[in-house]
């Protein structure tokens, strides 16, 4: 075998002169706008992006995040508001009722945690057990063999509008991050982020119709 091209399969069919293709003059080149386009859409300097992701700024307080994920927010908000009414209007199933009792308790408990907002003291979730990019250690994503390693499967029940938004969410995150990231990673990160934003979570639950007991 050859490393390179093999023999010419049509050698016999083109005895003397193969008609020279006249399209061979790189007509395509000016169509190739990829370079210039890439330069046109500059992303933020890495430093700035870091600051954004590290701060717990809510999207609507953060102009940059708003423009960056405008697409996502509109689709998401629309479906959210229409589905809100549906959810509260239609009778909830008993399993959902059980869950609602639970989350009511949780939300009243955690409200105080969120109010203090000092996550070092009152963090609901611990630091991830694996070394992070900031430590000297090798970050988890570099040592794990696959996306499911060290993870437990938990079932999540989502309404359609959330399921529909997920792919776009993963896209938006991948895009901001500059590399594709799996839905599994995004889900965990999103859930972790939410644990630092109890207020946000509470707001949504209230919008769905959960009311405080007092």
């Amino acid at each position: 075998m050859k490393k390179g091209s093999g023999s010419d399969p049509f050698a016999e069919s083109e005895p003397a002169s193969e008609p020279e293709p006249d399209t061979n003059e790189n007509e395509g080149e000016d169509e190739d706008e990829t370079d210039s386009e890439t330069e046109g859409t500059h992303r933020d300097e890495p430093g700035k992006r870091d600051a954004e992701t590290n701060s717990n700024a809510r999207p609507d307080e953060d102009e940059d995040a708003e423009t960056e994920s405008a697409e996502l927010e509109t689709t998401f908000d629309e479906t959210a508001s229409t589905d809100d009414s549906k959810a509260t209007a239609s009778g909830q199933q008993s399993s959902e009722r059980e869950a609602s009792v639970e989350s009511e308790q949780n939300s009243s408990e955690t409200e105080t945690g969120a109010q203090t907002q000092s996550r070092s003291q009152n963090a609901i979730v611990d630091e991830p057990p694996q070394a992070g990019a900031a430590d000297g250690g090798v970050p988890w994503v570099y040592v794990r063999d696959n996306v499911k390693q060290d993870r437990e499967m938990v079932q999540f029940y989502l309404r359609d509008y959330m399921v529909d938004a997920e792919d776009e969410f993963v896209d938006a995150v991948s895009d901001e991050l500059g590399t594709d990231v799996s839905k599994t990673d995004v889900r965990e990160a999103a859930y972790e982020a939410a644990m630092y934003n109890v207020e946000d979570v509470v707001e949504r639950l209230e919008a769905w119709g959960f009311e405080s007991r007092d």
Partner: protein
Amino acid sequence: MLTYTTYSEAGGVGKTTVGAALLEAHAAHGLDVLAIDMDQQNGSLTYLLDVDAPRDDSQADNIVRHLIDRPKGSLEDLVFETEHGFDLLPSHNMLENLEDLLNRAQRMADDLGEGDEFDPYDRLRQVLMDAGIPQEYDVIVIDPPATAGPHLYNAVSATRSLVIPVEPTGKGMQSVIGLEELVDGLEERLEAEIGVLSAVPNGVGRTTDQERYLEEVRERGYPAPVALRERSSLFEGCWDQQCTPAHYVETHRSRTRDHEMETLEKIDQLAGRIEEVGGL
């Protein structure tokens, strides 16, 4: 002229996806390009390129009828123009029975005393040549199914060069080691010299080191100009929208994404390199 089959021992490594991306890039380089879909399965190139060919009408003329020497029209009439600047000879459900049909054709040829001229693994090359197809194109790329058999043998015999997407895992790398033997086997069977134009580590994840895979492949002497990263959003988007990657980014992305542009540039580079190695 440049002819190659996208080949990999396993399925799902990206033959069709990478093939479509390369076809688009060759066409963008101003070349006259023909794709031939030899995969009978539904997730084939014909589907990806959204070509609406009558794949389940066995009365209609199709590539298999030509391969078994029972054509109903000229081969050129079976060629579709895609929206992506290149042509496609589409797949057909009759490909599912290619092996049986070729055997039967062989028997009929034997009965007629023409058995020696009928080579069931060299039919595609013969048919293309008879139709004058090689004179009309600069590049012919064939997308075969993953399983070894008459589809693959016909594809390789008609192109004699391979572009090999490689899964960037231990298993994928094992298959690179076994490649030499495998190609030797094909050469013996087809009695032709077969070349490897490029190996392409495809789907390299964030967690894996693409340089390492490129090195490993190059150490074995295979041209490997680029590794393609894991880009599920881009490539799944292509399958969803049924189009090629540059077309997808242009048409279905509201704004460009740097990491996707980088992948498109790599594909362009790979296509250029393959053209060079192939002597264009």
